[in-house]
């Protein structure tokens, strides 16, 4: 995945001045890499993901995957959203997971088999017939992950998928996600504002500046072995370093808001 001098601004219609969200973003994510984007709230992380997902088009520059410019959404880049409003509430867990296969015209019994297997992978065996409203927040995010993996897409784009979960559920799902990533070899772009989360998951972390007109301030390698431990000495040292940078960006955003 590559971002080449990407700028994005919302159209300045109905009297609102054009608002620049991203400017001059350059980024390269290798195939099979687990990349985390870390930045203060509202800095444009989601916009960056939306460009890669094909939900938005850049105002300038190019976003590409596998050497081909992104022209729109596609099954080769599945998305896991933050909230649960992306699930289909009238479909059961297994029917939600099947959705992509159903769109592709896979036969009923075949897609049921694949979806049931995907539910097993995310630890939801036996919950197939339940509706999303009958499941907890953590389970709903697992459905989203299962829905994304049935299409065997080479890339997974995740927009703060665990932000609304409690701490225990979050760290459980983080560990499971790493295992899933190791098993599938997919490229993952994962957005978070949680430094510890980024350190548990990522091969590399992209630190964003505060918006408007945000860009990537620096890219930090995470030279920790896996499985990672939160009580590792090096983990603490990296945490401090990232925290310093992030605090600086947040303060900059606040100062700009006051001005």
């Amino acid at each position, binding site marked *: 995945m590559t971002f080449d001098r990407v700028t994005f601004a919302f159209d300045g219609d109905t009297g609102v001045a054009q608002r620049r969200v991203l400017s001059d973003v350059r980024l390269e994510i290798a195939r099979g890499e687990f990349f985390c984007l870390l930045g203060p709230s509202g800095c444009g992380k989601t916009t960056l993901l939306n460009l890669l997902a094909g939900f938005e088009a850049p105002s300038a520059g190019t976003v590409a995957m596998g050497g081909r410019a992104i022209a729109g959404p596609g099954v080769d880049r599945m998305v896991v959203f933050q909230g649960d409003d992306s699930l*289909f509430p*009238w479909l059961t867990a297994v029917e939600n997971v099947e959705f992509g296969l159903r769109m592709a015209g896979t036969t009923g019994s075949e897609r049921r088999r694949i979806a049931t297997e995907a539910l097993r992978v995310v630890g939801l065996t036996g919950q197939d017939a339940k509706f999303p409203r009958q499941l907890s927040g953590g389970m709903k995010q697992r459905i989203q992950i299962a829905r994304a993996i049935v299409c065997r897409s080479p890339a997974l784009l995740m927009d703060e998928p665990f932000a609304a979960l409690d701490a225990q559920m979050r760290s459980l799902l983080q560990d499971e996600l790493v295992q899933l990533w190791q098993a599938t070899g997919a490229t993952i772009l994962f957005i978070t504002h949680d430094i510890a989360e980024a350190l548990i998951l990522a091969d590399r972390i992209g630190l964003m500046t505060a918006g408007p007109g945000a860009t990537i301030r620096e890219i930090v390698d995470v030279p920790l072995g896996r499985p990672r431990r939160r009580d590792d000495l090096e983990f603490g040292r990296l945490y401090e370093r990232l925290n310093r940078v992030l605090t600086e960006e947040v303060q900059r955003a606040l100062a700009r808001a006051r001005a």
Partner: protein
Amino acid sequence: MRRLAIYATSVAVVLLAWHLISALFFSPVLFPGPAAVAQRAAALVQEGQLQRDVVASLGRVLAGFALGSAVGILVGFVIGGSATFRTFLDPYVHFLRFITPIAWISPVMIWFGIGETSKVVLITYTTTFAVMLSTVAGVTTVPRNRLRAAQACGASPRQIFLFVVAPTALAQILVGMRLAMGYSFMTVVPAEMLAAESGLGYLIIHSRLWLATDTIFVGILTLGAIGLTMDTLFRWVMFGLLGRYTSPA
């Protein structure tokens, strides 16, 4: 069981109050009690008059309701899908919303005659607006992430409409249809009062000439009873049969 007991008590209390008020304060000609009304109802059923009127009114309501729902859903999807269309039609929608169907009775009778057509047209008009507005509301409030998730799953625009937009809008559409059913009943009565020779509205207005208050009461109570029956049926379809679409997420 407890609910049923409360229902039964409620009906008994109201019947008793009705009986007492009519017996103690009014002449039976002006305000007949429940016994007199029941007697009259039995007589009307025996003559076959009540059934005929119920079938006539209900037929008009159902025809107009079905037609209006179909048109309302269709137009609602078109308007809901296009911001330009929405803006174009917006002033008319909110302008016409305030004109009661009763105001249209005269021109509609001039255009469509005093036969069945004019009644069905009026009910269709009422239903179309309610259903169209709720369809537009349903279509325009599909969560953006739900649409995007479907796009990422490879859904074509046609598939997004069929498998995401329509099922999401269904709950709102049913709410609009349920309201429209009530509006249809409220429209059929004045229409039958002004131009008809059958139906419950006709029964009520015609009985006024003979000061047959008991018959008038039979007409009014029958309206409520079939309305309640239709709504119960509707609720059963809405929350039972289609429950997976109407349960809050």
